[in-house]
């Protein structure tokens, strides 16, 4: 049997390369935008920081999508499915590798922020002096930061896990249904998932505005961190349930793309 480390390395290879390509493109975009700003005579000490902030959403968004595509391809390519490794282990490794890549991308983004902040350090320092932070946030900033980071990571995992769920369930249907009925089932599954995604997005949007309102207006009397962890716990349960179904589909029904 192939070891955990070997499978991780194999599954991770192309995802990691895509993330690096994305980072190179982002850096290129920051440099070109900054030079263009300087050519137009609008350069200031804050230019690099604001440009880096502006571009950072693109790799974050594209990175999650690229990882999702690679994540799914692994399940139907013989190159990966012929590796002698048990399906539960294979599924877990794939999910962990996707998580590792998004963490890597986030850490690099943080590095880019820090470096870009150095260009406008004095301005940023004076802006920070003028800002006032509610005392309850000031005291619990570490827990707050940690909770939000975990929430974002778990949210990414729910996203990939749900895409796998749709992919593997519709793929499994080919075992039982004739082609026409399979098409109908696919439409039904897609409709359900789109509906659920919209509902969950709405709930997340409401949750975010509720958290910010509670944080800044409630004087710290409300245990918003506790509520956040309940949300994280619920999402982990969703990941586990979808994971169990996905592994079952992989074991019993999901086939690779034929030669």
């Amino acid at each position: 049997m192939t070891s955990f480390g070997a499978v991780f390395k194999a599954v991770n290879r192309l995802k990691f390369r895509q993330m690096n390509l994305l980072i190179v493109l982002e850096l290129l975009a920051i440099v070109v935008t900054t030079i263009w700003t300087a050519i137009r005579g609008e350069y200031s000490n804050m230019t690099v920081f604001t440009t880096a902030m502006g571009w950072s959403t693109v790799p974050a968004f594209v990175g999650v999508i690229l990882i999702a595509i690679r994540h799914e391809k692994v399940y139907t390519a013989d190159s990966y499915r012929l590796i002698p490794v048990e399906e539960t282990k294979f599924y877990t490794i794939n999910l962990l590798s996707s998580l590792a890549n998004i963490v890597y991308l986030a850490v690099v983004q943080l590095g880019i922020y820090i470096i870009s902040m150095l260009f406008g350090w004095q301005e940023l320092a004076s802006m920070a002096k003028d800002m006032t932070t509610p005392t309850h946030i000031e005291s619990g900033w570490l827990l707050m930061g940690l909770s939000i980071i975990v929430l974002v990571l778990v949210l990414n995992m729910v996203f990939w896990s749900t895409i796998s769920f749709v992919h593997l369930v519709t793929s499994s249907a080919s075992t039982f249904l004739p082609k026409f009925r399979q098409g109908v089932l696919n439409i039904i599954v897609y409709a359900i998932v789109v509906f659920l995604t919209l509902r969950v997005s709405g709930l997340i949007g409401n949750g975010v505005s509720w958290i910010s309102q509670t944080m800044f207006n409630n004087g710290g009397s409300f245990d918003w961190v506790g509520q956040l962890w309940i949300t994280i716990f619920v999402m982990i349960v969703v990941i586990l349930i979808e994971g169990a179904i996905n592994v079952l589909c992989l074991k019993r029904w999901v086939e690779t793309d034929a030669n």
Partner: protein
Amino acid sequence: MTDILKIENLTYKRNQRLLLQDVNLTLTAGKIVGLLGENGAGKTTLMRLITGSAQGHGTIMVSGTQTPTERKSHLSFSEQLRGFNRNTKVAQVVAFYHTVYPDFDPQRFHELAGFLQIDVNLRLGALSKGMREKLIIALTLARQVDLYLLDEPFSGIDSMSRKKIISSIIQWMPEEATLLISDHYVTEIAPILDEIVVVKDQTIAVHRAADEIRSESGMDIEDYYESLYEGGVNRD
């Protein structure tokens, strides 16, 4: 003789369409077996069922192991490298195989690559069809396993490359291993076959030793195979 492959009562359906039914087949160690049949007869499907890439009903055992995960560690299949991008270098594919298959022998691969004249510095997208097929053969044979499955290794490639591939099979296949090679053209592979298996009418229609066919029917393998489709040979 040790059974390398044992298939019992295997049935396979996809989209409610029956593709293979009641397949029974036993292959012993140290044989080169031709898996023959028309296009669409189910040769590739049968190989995919053996590897676990497709899921049917019935029993498949490779070297005494039954679960797909265990079977995979005893067989090497000529997969089409679809998991790689076109700009992946051959050397990176070799590194991938070395990472994921503990039985992959890089030394053996480089010997095969030298013999088949494969340039490991090229990217997959730059390989001709014949060169890509040679690479797949080299990767498949560079593993040290009990059962090798070569799925139509000669489709769309020139006769010189076919001869090279056949030579590499003879030279690098371990003596105690079994090779199942599928094709719908019999001419090139007929001389190296110990046995033939013909997939016809959704099942194994014939499984006979090549020498037995030659001595009993007085035909060569190609004529015998063609006669199956003309109704000229009584298979009972």
